[in-house]
């Protein structure tokens, strides 16, 4: 193993290019009123990490409570509030904004050779909107919580639920504007601000996947916003859209809700797929296998993702034909996802592979994503879903995709671009250790849930049959390990900020444009307008330690 960071193999022409974006102003004001996309990304990083922590504390409460079948830690109501907040915070305040708003924000202009996003002020505004939405959520947490689950199913949410339902809806509603504005900003930026020579065929796959994500942001989020407004109106003044007592239809809510929330799953995972493409190509020092297939797979996932929402409703009472069609389309969406996985694997073949922490995170991601995706196919099968719908099987499946996928990619991205963002190197051995701890802890936490689900353990159960206790205790202890794996980076990354070795412009020997600027980049990214003459992954043909034959 070569533990020391590799040397620069690509010279970086633009070092010593004036003060970095981090030093271009030290006052709080210079941060809070900044329009620099890199600083805004840092603002997001803090806000989003904070909410991840809040959501994780709720998860810890849930897992502690589930140690005993009677749930001795919390009351029934307390448990319901804990998982509702866990879900709401994790989905809307971590999973959806995490990668796009931090790494997308930071990297897209750098990757396409632009000075900033197309609308810098709008970008700052989206952060403030996110913060306001977050404050409303904190009000909900402190004000006693909600007991609707993150799905807000009517008529439970509109008539029967207690707690701060309207405030929670308001929080999600507001956060939606942040998503829409970010999506618009990315689309316009990628269309209009590419450096000369940055053709679509030279666009890094990270940008392709953010482009696809942005389409969903812009098209799907308004549907959610309107749906939630209707729920709030129903709760406050009883307009009767969803409540059968007033002539409404509860299934209409589910259709509208999932029309947004299913594509939202792809909002969570597409940026992660973009991250992994970057991590794999760089670690392998090799051009990605099948660039166009991977690029178009992102778009295909985004588009087909709009037509599968009904797979959440196989037992709701929707018609047989609707179910059969939704099931079919759900299988179809697996094809582009599978293409990506196979292409990443093929990229490693004859690569020049550096067994770095980002690679370990990426490999962990692929394993968990494959497990989550294939069990997703199982629940897309009508008759199997009838049995496992709303059980722990589904909880396991979506944690594999969302936590194993998105969160792992988020950590991988954090390590890979950490030198670029902060200008410092972290401790590689600790980072490898944390990647492995996360992978092991994750599987101990969530694999037992598949078994419990198939055995008939419904989700959202505070009190559960004793037969499940052994598996629940295993899952809870795994979550302690997982928490350790998530906390470890906080320490060594924090430490590296002060003591870490200084990073060169291109410590990984990568080819993207973001690595041609200094680490950390100067305020306006590039001293001179870059001109792109190569593809995004134009690595030299082979590493010196290669033989011609054999």
């Amino acid at each position, binding site marked *: 193993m070569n533990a020391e960071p590799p040397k620069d193999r690509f010279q970086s022409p633009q070092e010593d290019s004036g003060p970095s974006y981090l030093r271009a102003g030290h006052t709080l004001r210079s941060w809070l009123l900044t329009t620099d996309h890199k600083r805004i990304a840092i603002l997001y990083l803090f806000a989003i990490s904070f909410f991840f922590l809040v959501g994780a504390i709720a998860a810890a409460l849930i897992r502690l409570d589930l140690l005993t079948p009677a749930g001795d830690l919390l009351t029934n109501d307390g448990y319901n509030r804990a998982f509702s907040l866990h879900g709401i915070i994790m989905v809307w305040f971590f999973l959806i904004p995490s990668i796009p708003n931090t790494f997308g924000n930071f990297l897209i202009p750098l990757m396409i050779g632009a000075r900033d996003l197309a609308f810098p002020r709008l970008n700052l505004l989206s952060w403030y909107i996110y913060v306001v939405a977050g404050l409303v959520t904190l009000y909900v947490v402190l004000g006693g919580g909600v007991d609707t689950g993150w799905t807000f199913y009517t008529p439970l949410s509109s008539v*029967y639920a207690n707690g701060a339902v309207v405030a929670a809806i308001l929080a999600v509603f507001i956060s939606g504007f942040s998503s829409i504005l970010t999506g618009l900003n990315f689309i316009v930026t990628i269309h209009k601000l590419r450096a000369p020579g940055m053709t679509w065929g030279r666009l890094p796959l990270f940008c392709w996947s953010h482009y696809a994500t942005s389409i969903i942001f812009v098209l799907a989020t308004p549907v959610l916003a309107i749906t939630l407004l209707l729920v709030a109106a129903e709760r406050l003044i009883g307009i009767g859209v969803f409540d059968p007592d007033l002539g409404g239809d509860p299934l209409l809510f589910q259709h509208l809700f999932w029309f947004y929330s299913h594509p939202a799953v792809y909002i969570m995972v597409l940026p992660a797929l973009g991250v992994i493409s970057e991590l794999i190509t760089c670690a392998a020092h090799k051009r990605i296998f099948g660039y166009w297939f991977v690029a178009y797979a992102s778009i295909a996932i985004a588009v087909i993702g709009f037509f599968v929402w009904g797979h959440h409703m196989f037992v709701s*009472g929707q018609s047989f034909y609707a179910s059969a069609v939704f099931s079919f389309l759900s*299988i179809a969406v697996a094809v582009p996802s599978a293409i990506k996985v196979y292409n990443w694997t093929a990229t490693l073949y004859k690569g*020049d*592979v550096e067994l770095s922490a980002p690679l370990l995170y990426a*490999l962990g991601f692929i394993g968990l994503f494959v497990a989550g995706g294939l069990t997703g*196919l199982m629940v897309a099968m009508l008759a199997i879903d009838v*049995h496992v719908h709303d059980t722990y099987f589904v909880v396991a499946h979506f944690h594999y995709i969302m936590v194993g996928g998105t969160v792992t990619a988020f950590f991988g991205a954090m390590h890979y671009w950490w030198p670029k963002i902060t200008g410092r190197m972290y401790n590689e051995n600790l980072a490898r250790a944390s990647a492995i701890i996360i992978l092991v802890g994750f599987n101990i936490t969530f694999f037992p849930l598949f078994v419990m689900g198939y055995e008939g353990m419904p989700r959202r159960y505070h009190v559960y049959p004793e037969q499940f206790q052994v598996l629940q205790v295993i899952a809870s202890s795994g979550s302690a390990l997982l928490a350790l794996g998530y906390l470890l980076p906080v320490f060594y990354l924090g430490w590296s900020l002060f003591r870490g070795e200084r990073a060169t412009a291109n410590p990984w020997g990568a080819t993207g444009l973001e690595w041609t600027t200094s680490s950390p980049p100067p305020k306006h990214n590039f001293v001179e307008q870059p001109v792109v003459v190569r593809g995004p992954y134009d690595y030299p043909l082979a590493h010196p330690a290669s033989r011609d034959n054999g």
Partner: protein
Amino acid sequence: MSGFFPWQPAASAYGRQIDLLAAAFGTMVWLLAIPVFVLMAVFAWRYRRTREVNRQNRPNGNVWVEASWSVIPFLMILVFYVWATSLYLDLRQPPEDAVTIDVVAKQWMWKFQHPEGAREINDLHVPVGTPIKLVMTSQDVIHSLYLPALRIKQDVVPGRYSTLWFTADRAGAYPLRCAEFCGADHSVMGGKLIVMEAADFAAWQAAHNGNGALSAAERGARLYRTSGCAGCHDRTQEGLAPALSDIFGRQVVLADGSRTRADEQYLRDAIMLPNKQVVAGFRGIMPSYAASFSAEEVADLVAFLKSAPSADGRIAQP
């Protein structure tokens, strides 16, 4: 196959088919996943940086390879799609001779009404080997009736009737749970499905039908009288309201010319939302009973209408 899996063997032929499907699909899932895992690890290790290996002629893409690894797994999965969809279709088509049990869910209990009159809460007794059809509705929020031992569940939605059918073929007591989050006591909303040998069931039924308990249809008949339904519906000749004598299962022509089958949902809507579907030839003068009947009372009325065919157009009253 039992013993191989940590879960209980299914208590119905349908359930065992689900187990078979899941096991087969699960096997294929591993077959698709393992090559990826193995190759990833092998490539990462074999082509690690410090190692001197052949890296010449590195592939950068190949349309045929891409096509084959997207199309072949897709075709394999399509086989399972057909299998799973046909099982699901079976679940949607109850046999004609199934015994109908009415189910009303409310926060946080299950109320069951047997056709002969026995009523029970949370526990459901059924005879072994008999097709049972549950006709379910909710009085408040959405619940979901889940019978893990039979590998089936179905949401129970206010304002709608949903059905679930099964034939349990192994006597025993099995869990019965609510699977859709329904508020504070969601996790304790459940009971047992008790599958009994025919003789035991007959004895149970005899003990529970008697002592003055009315059947659902009988209670419905009483409501029909006391709520004044007869006042209009027995005067069909005067064109006041349609006859209800053998309404259940009949084709009904609506005012807008369309036709519909008078199933549980139709009858319920006719009582709760009478102006939604007006019968051809009648004026929409029927008032809504949404405010006066509970979900259970509506179920009783529907049971009565199902049971009341008579020759003279007037509805038979006890």
